[in-house]
């Protein structure tokens, strides 16, 4: 049944500038099975879509090919248009004339020839298309949020407030994330903890949120609406149901010199510890790596101290299983630290700090209670240098991207310093100032103008020590590349924001893709910023790319809305691009011989055993069957099946074969 309609888009001039679109539509119009072929300036526009809808009816089309941009862009648009005119949407295909043709070739005969070939290919494919019906699967209305920073907190609260259950897991003993470490926040300079802790408490008390701290995702199986998450509850060695959080054990713990993660290494903590005073939950865990008992088999002072007997030495990691319908990934970011800047002396000179360390110095809850003091001698630095873009925008360092928050927090740091050390002198080395955000530019201006921070545009080549001073050597590019040398008491590096370590492994567990820098990849850079390519898994916050708090919170709410939208349906409608095992009338039943090698090849455990029984109930044969809920449509089984008994809808053997043949026959 081929009456195919072909619609060639000019895409303004994006296509028509290099492809002779009229020749394309004319030649395709002469193809066998093509009933109608036109070209138009904007196919995706309302009138363009109307052309398609009208043609479907007028010519009784049984297939549509739109030659336009990438199907990754507009396939849903045109399929919807077809559906609206009564044509099964899966009888519509797109030929990629823009990204794969007009944009990558010069204007020439060959370019038009290629465009014709590409359209022909899809016409031949669509001739073999079959109407498909969407697949409906039930939805488990519980969400899993991974990561308890501000992104995870916000997403959890938003989802929980729509009335749905949330499971929030956090790998550290407390939620709060990086935001809890910050002193003040730009551009308002309000106290980070003051605005965060109420949210943390809300999470802990929310009836719809089940919080697991000190927990990590072990595995995730299943598919949108129907995930099975295995969660590893790391042994806390403290029984939280009896622990009162009195803190006596912490007081008595003899191991006191462990660098505090919360204080970015500037302070210390004990082996049994609560990361910070405002932690949620405010109960300790034992760090088994540093605990004397676990290291040497003796101590147990905490146990003796504990009045309620909450210490559990033999507690093991526990794996629990939770059924969820959606996942929000909010694992945040990390900053580059030691060894990354040998030329800046980080790790070598005590007074070269990262931005995060400076946050802790500036924070009232920090190791110096908010006073800016040198780690080396506790002196108040009189001269301080901030180096922006420490690592970021530096292809040589492997981080060509902008970390986005550094310009702002560097201005904030300089400002905080000036507020705290009135006679201090601060200098910022910067490449460009990127202050795109509400009140951001004004904030930086204030730092420069009101707080007299000295901004020098230029790269710092080296930081070295000389007579107890840190010498910062750089150039001032605004002064024509003049060498600048500053003697400083402290240097703060605005180190690049990078993906959390382990994000790659996590991505693989979740089957989501990630970018070259191991940040999780969004499904579409513009239109699907919170979705991943794996349906049902959403992104929030800096695990996708470095971002500031308002952006993170906005994205978290966005992800929450996506989850809530998903949960607003009892059933989920999925693309029918799934594998199918052929079924035939008796006595053949199927050409599948049940070798089940597809079962071993399937990454999703989607192959089931189907028993074919005779009228008398006796087993005739066992063949493979695809669980359409689990199948994600990769088609590995299809290429593997020796007897070609399994095929994948949307990319059937007949379809891809027809495509290939059309390209080679002329």
């Amino acid at each position, binding site marked *: 049944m081929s009456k195919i309609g072909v619609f060639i888009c000019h895409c303004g001039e994006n296509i028509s500038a290099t492809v002779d679109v009229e020749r394309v539509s004319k030649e395709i119009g002469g193809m066998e099975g093509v009933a109608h072929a036109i070209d138009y300036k904007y196919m995706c526009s309302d009138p363009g879509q109307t052309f398609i809808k009208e043609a479907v009816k007028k010519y009784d089309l049984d297939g549509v090919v739109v030659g336009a941009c990438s199907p990754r862009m507009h396939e849903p648009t045109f399929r919807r248009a077809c559906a609206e005119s009564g044509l099964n949407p899966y009888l519509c295909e797109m030929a990629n004339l823009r990204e794969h043709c007009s944009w990558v070739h010069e204007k020439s005969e060959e370019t038009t020839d290629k465009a014709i070939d590409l359209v022909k290919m899809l016409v031949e494919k669509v001739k073999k298309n079959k109407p498909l019906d969407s697949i409906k699967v039930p939805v488990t209305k519980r969400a899993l949020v991974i990561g308890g920073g501000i992104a995870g907190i916000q997403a959890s609260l938003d989802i929980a407030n729509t009335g749905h259950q949330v499971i929030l897991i956090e790998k550290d003993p407390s939620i709060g994330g990086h935001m809890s470490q910050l002193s003040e926040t730009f551009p308002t300079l309000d106290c980070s903890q003051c605005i965060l802790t109420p949210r943390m408490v809300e999470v802990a008390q929310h009836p719809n949120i089940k919080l697991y701290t000190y927990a990590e995702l072990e595995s995730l199986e299943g598919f949108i609406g129907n995930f099975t998450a295995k969660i590893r509850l790391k042994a806390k060695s403290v029984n939280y149901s009896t622990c009162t959080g009195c803190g006596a054990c912490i007081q008595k713990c003899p191991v006191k010199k462990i660098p505090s993660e919360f204080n970015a290494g500037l302070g210390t903590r004990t082996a049994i510890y609560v990361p910070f005073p405002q932690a949620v939950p405010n109960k300790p865990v034992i760090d088994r790596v540093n605990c004397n008992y676990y290291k040497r088999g003796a101590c147990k002072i905490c146990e003796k101290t504990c009045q309620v007997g909450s210490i559990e030495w033999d507690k093991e990691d526990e794996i629990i299983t939770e059924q969820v319908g959606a996942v929000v990934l909010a694992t945040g970011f990390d900053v580059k630290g030691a060894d990354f800047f040998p030329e800046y002396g980080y790790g070598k000179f005590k007074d070269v700090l990262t931005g995060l360390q400076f946050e802790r110095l500036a924070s009232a809850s920090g190791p110096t209670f908010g006073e800016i003091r040198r780690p080396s001698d506790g002196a108040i630095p009189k001269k301080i240098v901030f180096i922006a873009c420490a690592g970021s925008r530096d292809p040589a360092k492997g981080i060509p991207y902008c970390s986005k928050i550094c310009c702002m927090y560097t201005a904030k740091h300089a400002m905080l310093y000036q507020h705290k050390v009135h006679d201090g002198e601060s200098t910022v080395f910067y490449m460009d100032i990127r202050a795109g955000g509400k009140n951001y530019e004004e904030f930086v201006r204030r730092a420069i103008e009101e707080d007299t921070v000295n901004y020098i545009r230029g790269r710092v080549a080296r930081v070295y020590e000389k007579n107890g001073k840190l010498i910062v050597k750089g150039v001032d590019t605004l002064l024509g590349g003049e060498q600048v040398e500053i003697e400083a008491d402290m240097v703060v590096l605005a180190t690049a924001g990078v993906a959390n370590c382990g994000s790659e492994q996590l991505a693989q567990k979740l089957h989501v893709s990630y970018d070259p820098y191991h940040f999780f990849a969004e499904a579409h850079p513009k239109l699907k910023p919170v979705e991943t390519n794996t349906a049902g898994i959403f992104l929030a916050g800096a695990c996708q790319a470095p971002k500031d708090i308002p952006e993170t919170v906005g994205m978290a709410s966005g992800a929450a809305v996506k989850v809530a939208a998903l949960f607003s349906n009892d059933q989920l409608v999925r693309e029918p691009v799934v594998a199918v095992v052929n079924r035939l009338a008796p006595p053949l039943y199927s050409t599948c011989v049940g*070798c089940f090698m597809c079962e071993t090849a399937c990454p999703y455990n989607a192959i089931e055993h189907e028993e074919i029984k005779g009228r008398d109930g006796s087993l005739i044969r066992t063949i493979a069957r695809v669980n359409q809920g689990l199948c994600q449509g990769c088609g590995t089984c299809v290429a*593997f099946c020796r007897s070609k008994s399994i095929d994948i809808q949307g990319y059937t*053997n007949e379809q891809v074969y027809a495509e290939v043949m059309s390209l080679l026959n002329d």
Partner: protein
Amino acid sequence: MEKLRGRAAALLADGSVALIIGYEEGTKRPRPLFCRNSESTKKLIFDSRCINNLAVYITKKELVGKDRIAVTASISTLRSILQLYVENQLSEEKLLVLTVDLNGELREFVTFDEISAYVAQFELKRGEREQEILSKIEGMNREERWKFWLGEMSHCFKCYACRSACPLCYCSKCVVEVNRPQWINPWPAPLANMEWHINRAMHMVGRCTACGACGDACPVGIPIDLITRKMMKDMAPEFGYIPGQPAKQGNALSSWKLDDREQFIR
């Protein structure tokens, strides 16, 4: 021999099995024999001249029916049986396997694990002819190999004796009979034949047990078994499997390793 015959007769007599597939003397060399009564077991023989791979019959429903059967198996046949078991084509309840070991003793296997343990003692042997042609091919450059095989393929008339003789070609509809699309041109012509044999070799990767039945069966003398044997020789160490000792978690092409070779991928 007498022990085998005696045991076979007893198995049939007491109804433990309904059929024994073995060998009898043929006109040229021993050939398959199907014993359904004690009388016929007198014709049973089992020696090194018995080269047909009897595993090919075990998957034929119309032949074996629903009852338990027994088969006298050479080492090659045992290997094929193991592979068929892994591919869910056999069940232990329906099959009794007999063999005569190197000491002339009759052995009976009730479970596939027993077969696996027994087979593990034997190394795959390579025949002289195989070695000779292989070294000849290995000494050729690519163009010469192409000419050699194309020449061989020009003799193939697609009688599919290779497929029929292979215990692992048990599909009810072979890919060459699939015509939507027509993956492999069904007529005999050198390229169409080449497509068929490349396809067969691909289907055999990690499955072939090197019994050589396909090569023995080819009436026009194409050394087709070499293709799968050479693949086995090269791929088994690469993919880390032991030929003839299949793994239950899938075969070479339905599994993978993180560090599989990929220097050919740009």
